């Protein structure tokens, strides 16, 4: 990985034997995939060629590496395209060859040389429990590392639901006292690219868009790019005609499920989940959970682990946020409150009888 990204992108292309035409083609395809106007492909290519390769630092904290795995499986642009042609990935735990103090030195140098200009990508949540001991590397806690890295960053991309909203570690009872990036860093522009994991092309598309335009994309109130998170899964789901016609699958692999009916009753969270799964899909447009027969988990939304069972319909009761409300719980509640009501009723009847007695006496 180069730590001197003053070399322009065009120069890197020449060194790697990527022709100008191949690069224009790559930018055109990326612009098309990001639903940008067609002329922007050529404009992006021109702009990037003369620009110094932007420095990117990728920090991973309390995470499962799923987001990074997703990142490396992007088809357009591919990670190779990005790394070799466009960006200078100056630090990344998983990909870099260096380790130990050499790696720490690389990080420090990258941050110093590009102070105020580098793109900081973060995945994983940041635990503050036990004084930050739950996630440490090189003797420094995740909290310390993030704060130091954020100081010189031009923008922070919080990749994945853990970095965006806290994700799995944040779920009840949050034993490590985990926080999302926005809970630790203030005063820096943050883009949340949520999902568990996010769609590969959404991650690379957002990064490429920032790198080529230098500006933040339109963000929703959860700081997610509206280009990808502006619509719900339900809005774009191909099974929507079945929802509208009231054809719901009742159990997995029943007749309705095999006919591709709506999965609302099997707990699909599509109507309340904002993501691009229904249009961009996964594995270069192969499929997405609903198409494969399983309801949406709502993984790009805050607190999705604590919003009740994944298999109970959104209209159903959710009294303890830990699973489906069982008829037994209902019976217990009804019984208990009915008993209380009976006591009140006996009291009221007693008073009524007293009144009856008095009126009869007259």
């Amino acid at each position, binding site marked *: 990985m180069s730590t001197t990204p003053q070399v322009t992108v065009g120069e890197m292309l020449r060194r790697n034997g990527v022709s100008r035409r191949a690069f224009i083609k790559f930018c055109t395809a990326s612009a098309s995939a990001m639903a940008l106007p067609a002329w922007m492909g050529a404009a992006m290519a021109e702009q990037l060629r003369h620009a110094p390769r932007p420095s990117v630092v990728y920090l991973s904290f309390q995470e499962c590496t799923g987001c990074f795995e997703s990142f490396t499986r992007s088809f357009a642009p591919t990670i190779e395209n990005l790394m070799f042609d466009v960006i200078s990935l100056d630090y990344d735990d998983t990909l870099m060859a260096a380790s130990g103090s050499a790696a720490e030195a690389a990080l420090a140098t990258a941050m110093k040389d590009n102070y105020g200009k580098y793109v900081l990508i973060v995945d994983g949540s940041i635990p503050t429990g036990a004084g930050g001991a739950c996630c440490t590397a090189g003797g420094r806690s995740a909290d310390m590392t993030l704060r130091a890295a954020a100081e010189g960053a031009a923008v922070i991309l919080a990749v994945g639901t853990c970095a965006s909203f806290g994700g799995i570690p944040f779920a009840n009872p949050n034993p490590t006292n985990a926080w999302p990036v926005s809970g630790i860093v203030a005063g820096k522009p943050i883009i949340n690219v949520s999902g568990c994991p996010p769609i590969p092309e959404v991650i690379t598309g957002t990064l490429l868009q920032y790198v080529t335009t230098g500006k933040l994309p339109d963000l929703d109130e959860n700081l997610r790019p509206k280009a990808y998170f502006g619509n*719900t899964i*339900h809005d774009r789901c191909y099974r929507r005609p079945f*929802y*509208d*016609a*009231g*054809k*719901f699958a*009742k159990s997995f692999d029943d007749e309705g499920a095999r006919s591709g009916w709506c999965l*609302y*009753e099997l707990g699909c969270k599509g*109507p*309340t989940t904002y993501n691009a799964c229904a249009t961009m899909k996964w594995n270069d447009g192969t499929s997405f959970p609903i198409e494969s027969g399983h309801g949406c988990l709502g993984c790009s939304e805050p*607190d999705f682990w*604590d*919003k*009740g069972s994944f298999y*109970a*319909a*959104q*209209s*159903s*009761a*959710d*009294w*303890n*946020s830990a699973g*489906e*409300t*069982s*008829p037994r719980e*209902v019976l217990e*509640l*009804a019984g*208990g*409150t*009915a*008993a*209380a*009501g*009976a006591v*009140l*009723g*006996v009291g*009221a*009847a*007693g008073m*009524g*009888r007293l009144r*009856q*007695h008095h009126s*009869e006496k007259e």
Partner: protein
Amino acid sequence: MDLLGFARGPALEVSVGIFCAGVVWRIAAFALLKIRREQSRPRQSVLRYVSEGLLATASRSWPHPEFTKRTGAGEALGYSYHMGLFVVILLYGPHIALLGSLVGFTWPGLPSPLITGLAVVTLTLFCGVLFRRLTSPVMRMLSNFDDYFTWFITMLVLVTGLAASAHLGARYETLLAIHILSVDGLLVWFPFGKLMHAFYIMPSRAINGAILARKGAPS
């Protein structure tokens, strides 16, 4: 916790609790009252007048011929929107999912577009009912806060339900939360207003019918 989580979580739990407690309270409060001893001689055997009392629940379900001209239309309107409400509540997929989660079993429903159409018809009839209540001088004189508020809260459930199923007016999670909260409101109000007629109507007709039948004048 977001609004939807609150609506279908603690709010629903508390509302169902208040509903159960309130309904049992109010039923007990009248069921345990002393039945005033009839001083007159019974004109029929106990078996006869009790069974005729039970029949009165049916015979009093439609006005006597002398009154149908005056009140028939109003009765028909009432029955129509009640049936509309029952079908929409009990035979719509997402409602069956909710009720099924509470009682432990489900049943087949009707196609959603049909339910939507019925809900719109019910909404229209419901507005008609209010119109009648406001324009008829007798009805206006008899009506109180209870009547209007009960109408309002039932209407709110209907309107928010249609908005949620049509995804109209706000984000879906907000619409669904508002709809469930309005149902919670209805459940809390139920035991304390005119909605208790759901539980009183049959016993009331049966008891009155039995008393009259005992006197030799079955209705």
